[in-house]
């Protein structure tokens, strides 16, 4: 069987990148960038995860089917997140009918 044997050098390079990105994500957290902090942290985490998936988990060298499997997993995760949050993020949009607010007040 001829499976792709990834050269040791690539593994070490991947490792160094991951450690570097970890340091970056810690460092960035100490600057107050508002909501951007969350987005940068997530972007770095996604990058790290992608590198792990592509190289350590050999997806880069795998069949299209594996790509589809990996993609579908994250697609469904996105469905779960987006549709659930669509409820929580839009609850405040509709004003309470008048009369209800006064009943809530003690």
């Amino acid at each position, binding site marked *: 069987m001829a499976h792709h044997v990834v050269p040791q050098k690539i593994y070490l390079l991947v490792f160094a990148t991951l450690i570097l990105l970890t340091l970056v994500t810690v460092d960035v957290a100490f600057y107050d960038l508002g909501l951007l902090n969350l987005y940068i942290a997530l972007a770095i985490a996604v990058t790290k995860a992608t590198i792990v998936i592509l190289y350590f988990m050999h997806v880069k060298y795998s069949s299209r089917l594996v790509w589809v499997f990996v993609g*579908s997993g994250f697609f469904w995760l996105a469905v779960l997140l987006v549709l659930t949050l669509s409820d*929580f993020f839009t609850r405040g*949009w509709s004003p309470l009918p008048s009369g209800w607010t006064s009943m809530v007040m003690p």
Partner: protein
Amino acid sequence: MDATPINAHSGTPGEPIRANYLNVNYGLKSWLLTTDHKRIGILYLISITIFFALGGIFAALIRLELMTPEGDVVSSEMYNKLFTMHGVAMIFFFLIPSIPAVFGNFLIPMMIGARDVAFPRLNLMSWYIYSIGGVFTFAAMALGGVDTGWTFYAPYSSTYSNSNVALTAVGIFILGFSSILTGLNFIVTIHKMRAPGLTWFRLPLFVWAHYATSLIQILGTPVVAISIVLVALERLLKLGIFDPKLGGDPLLFQHLFWFYSHPAVYIMILPSMGVVSEVIACFSRKRVFGYPFIAFSSLAIAVLGFLVWGHHMFTSGQSVYAGMIFSVLTMLVAIPSAVKVFNWTATLYKGSVSYQAPMLYALGFIGLFTIGGLTGLFLATLATDVHLHDTYFVVAHFHYIMVGGAIMGYMAAMHFWWPKMTGRLYPEGWAKFAALVIFVGFNLTFFPQFVLGYLGMPRRYHVYPPEFQVLNVMSTAGASILAVGYIIPLIYLLWSLKYGPAAGANPWQAKGLEWTTPSPPPPHNFERTPVVTEEAYAYESKPYPEEAEVV
């Protein structure tokens, strides 16, 4: 199963007996340690029949209580437990494993020309996991039951209920792994184990339906697993997740729960749709009309089914904007469902239709599923749902899908492949009679419930105003007829094991690889790996009478 008559004469010399999966070895151990997908299918058949009977008894008690407006048979606490345990037994332990674990296990490897599933030991393990989950749940029932409703809504399930929630939750959590492993096995099997020449568009639609089902099983089940874990953590360790008193939001539980449990409806119905495609084609002697549309509509149902769960929460306090999105998305599921119904009907058109028992069930499926699906649209519409939510209309709707749809398909499969599984024919007259009894009993049970719900009778109460009694008595009468309808097949199928005439390899003159191997099939399904050269359902390629050579 050891007493199967085929085994009766144990291979005396001079009378060669063909080795099949039933007689290849004997004894309890050979069954409990088997990795043969066919035997595992039989193991599942026995286990789910037990839970079906259990769930049926709970249903009978519910209907008995509802015969009169007063709460006279059971207390209200007991009634809560009855409908909860009816739901748990029927949904988690019968409907979800029903067709996939029994017929999917038995048939998919044969339909794709494989010797077994991809992971036979995992397959056996999933049956053991099912059984362990069953034992936990059964223990919870025996130790006093559980009363949260099968939906386990927090914070009732996590903080306030004083019944055996934790034990039941453990049982269902364990069971989930069984479902995941079955789905995983099927997906890999269908991808990697197909016989030479068996391209995706030559696969039987039963296999497509199971592929779609398996997708839901592996994508949805883990989410309900984690929500059950979180309920248990909140209940046992008082973590603050769902209970508002602890800072949580109960709607989060409903979101996570329905992310699985709505698609779970399609876990129950998609395999039935696969069965119906097989049966309709066989008994119309025609190629299925619009094969790729039926195949892709299965996948479309699986995918769209994940986008609609919020329609269970229209009246829960969910944002109306989310509600609108979920309402629109729910309507979309009607499209692939209707595509299937139209294609089956078109298959019947100008076919030489014969009304054998499996066909009766399949036709019953089409009609009842259509009613169940269309009434679903009432509930998907925001405004009408406010009126109908949590009434008997909902109960009637989902029983039309689950009993009228899923169980009809299960019965069709049972009759269609029983000769293949056991090598015996069942008495056709009795089977047709039972199909009729089930159809009448089912409609008498559940049609009045549409009316009851529309008139405003809420579900999950054990007393009701006296003006609802006439319809409730009709429903209870129907339930007793339905019970008879389920007992008759149990009797004649068991009878056929000993007294049924030998079936031969292909009693229906059906197409498909599973019919090319003897009944019951040999241990490794095929003498040599089959090579597929034609499309599925090539019923018209040769005229029907000349096909006798297959036996």
